[in-house]
């Protein structure tokens, strides 16, 4: 007998269009392997479109970004999180000090969660001190 398989399903909300369909992501041994539409969802009632049925395919794609990158001598190079975060925070701070808070612009995202959107606009407004925050609502 081999090791028992580890199979789970996790109820979540689709990342594609504004319909907001609900489905279960199928996870086998830590890999997302498929989707099962949620029958009780008030939006999609057990149906999905072609994008929803295949939404698991990009999640663990080999081309995913896996390490922070920093431009050194014109090229993006892999660096540690500490280096990437310190660089970002330091440069933002310097630019705020030299050119003022409104010299910094933020594009938040229609693809990330409410919590993340809330946090980025809080950072822009409370920490940096600018209302220069927008996203692709018009695109």
């Amino acid at each position, binding site marked *: 007998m081999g090791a028992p398989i580890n199979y789970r399903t996790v109820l979540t909300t689709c990342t594609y269009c504004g319909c907001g369909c609900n489905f279960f992501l199928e996870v086998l041994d830590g890999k997302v392997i498929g989707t099962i539409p949620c029958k009780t969802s008030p939006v999609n009632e057990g149906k999905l479109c072609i994008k929803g049925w295949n939404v698991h395919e990009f999640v663990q794609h080999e081309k995913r970004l896996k390490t922070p990158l920093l431009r050194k001598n014109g090229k993006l190079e892999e660096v540690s999180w500490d280096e990437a975060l310190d660089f970002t925070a330091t440069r933002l701070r310097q630019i705020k000090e030299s050119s003022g808070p409104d010299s910094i612009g933020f*594009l938040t995202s229609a693809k990330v969660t409410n919590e993340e959107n809330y946090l980025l606009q809080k950072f822009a407004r409370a920490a940096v001190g600018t209302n220069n925050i927008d996203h692709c609502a018009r695109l």
Partner: protein
Amino acid sequence: MTNSIAEFEGADCIFIIGSNTTVAHPLIATRIYRAKKNGAKIIVADPRRVHISEVADVYVQQKMGTDVALINGIMNVILEAGWHDQAFIDERTEDFEKFRKVVAAFPPEKAAEVCGVSADDIRAIAEIYGRADKASLVYCMGITQHTTGVDNVKSLANLAMLTGNLGKESCGVNPLRGQNNVQGACDMGGLPNVFTAYQPVTSSAAAEKFARAWGVESLSTMVGMTIPAMLEGLEGGTVKAMYVLGENPVVSDPDVNHVKKALEKAELLVVQDIFLTATAELADVVLPGVSFAEKDGTFSNTERRVSRVRQAVTPAGEARQDWWIIQEISRRFGYAMDYASPQAIFDEMTTLTPSYGGMTYERLEGDGLQWPCPTSDHPGTRFLHKDKVARGKGLFHAIAYQPPAEVVDAEYPLWLSTGRVFAHYHTGTMTRNSPTLDAEIEEGFLELSAEDATQLGIADGEWVTLSSRRGSIEVRAMVTKRISVGSVFMPFHFIESCANVVTNPAHDPICKIPELKVCAVRVEKSARTS
């Protein structure tokens, strides 16, 4: 949306204008098919013969950028025939007289001259929509992505108010939001003029409330910059740094050659994303965030429903939670943040956001909740403006037709519109990295009519050069009946044939939306063969 997705099934009439519903919102199209089966009349108006037009009782092909003329023509007929709802107008709206005068001067014959839809078809639409008990309006970016985007939307609001199709079940004005969480990004204050729940940054009361909650002395009460203004600022040197989270403006924005040049001028470009997008390639620092399957949180859909997102797998490689990345940068920047989880962020947000005030993760279990949901015992809201329009009185706007910013001429004789295909999503960051979806449609194409193809000596599948005042691209031709003579269409998902090289960045003066749905182009046979 003023109303809910499920309510479409109960409508007597659904008027779809500027929405490629089957492609862009498939599960809403399903509801429209069911409505049709239940006896609803379906009207579709679109310059391109989109798939949903197959089930239309009336389908009309208005010229690009003439929506105001078409809608004013429809309202003229409704007023003349007396199909308007005078009681609704008297009780719940204001400024009707000014509006009536503009519309009265716009008979269907005059509208027909501008929009190319026959006066008879305009009368047919007016009769179906005007006489329906419950008529629902559905629109998408075919209405909004114009220099007259705000005028177009106000015209649809006029139409709904004129006929009393607001504040009751299965009617309303229903914009289909494109991105999964574009509603949420707006609700959360991801806009330069508002905090969460559209509390204006210019209101000193709102600014004081948020400053207190966030532990800072004061907050800026000056409206910030929109994307086009930031790009101009980069070019002019007033904007020095950009922090881009999960967006790809180098493919998605109009006139991308110009966008790229602007971003290259940034002293600091920070990009946080899940793939190395064309925008990330320009960055000074790239921060790997996580996909929806690797995170907890909430999304708000087009019907204002807030639903849970749940983590299914561990992040790819060293990728980190997006909220953690922002928190760490903030901490190192000198502003302390100490959230233990997305739930902790949500709980803080709800205390500052009246329409989300009654929501908790616990309450979102099951079906989620539709805002406004102001208190912990409020069941959420299926449709808006019940009994009374939210602003007090529904405001009629007198709107006259204005042409698009760029019109065809001898040098650029064809109209171009851009849009989406069923297998792909926006800039393709996710779908083009999904083998099954990418196999469905692997490259971009330019739709043109058989008549135009013959005249230009172009066969189906041949390479053509598409040019506008902004630039040129090479793309394969697709000869089709979907598009009318004199017009061409192409999807914008494909960076190899990037439609946004040619699109026009001219934008609506109020909301700054670019005119992606209409510009003037030239098509020529290309020397390229493969």
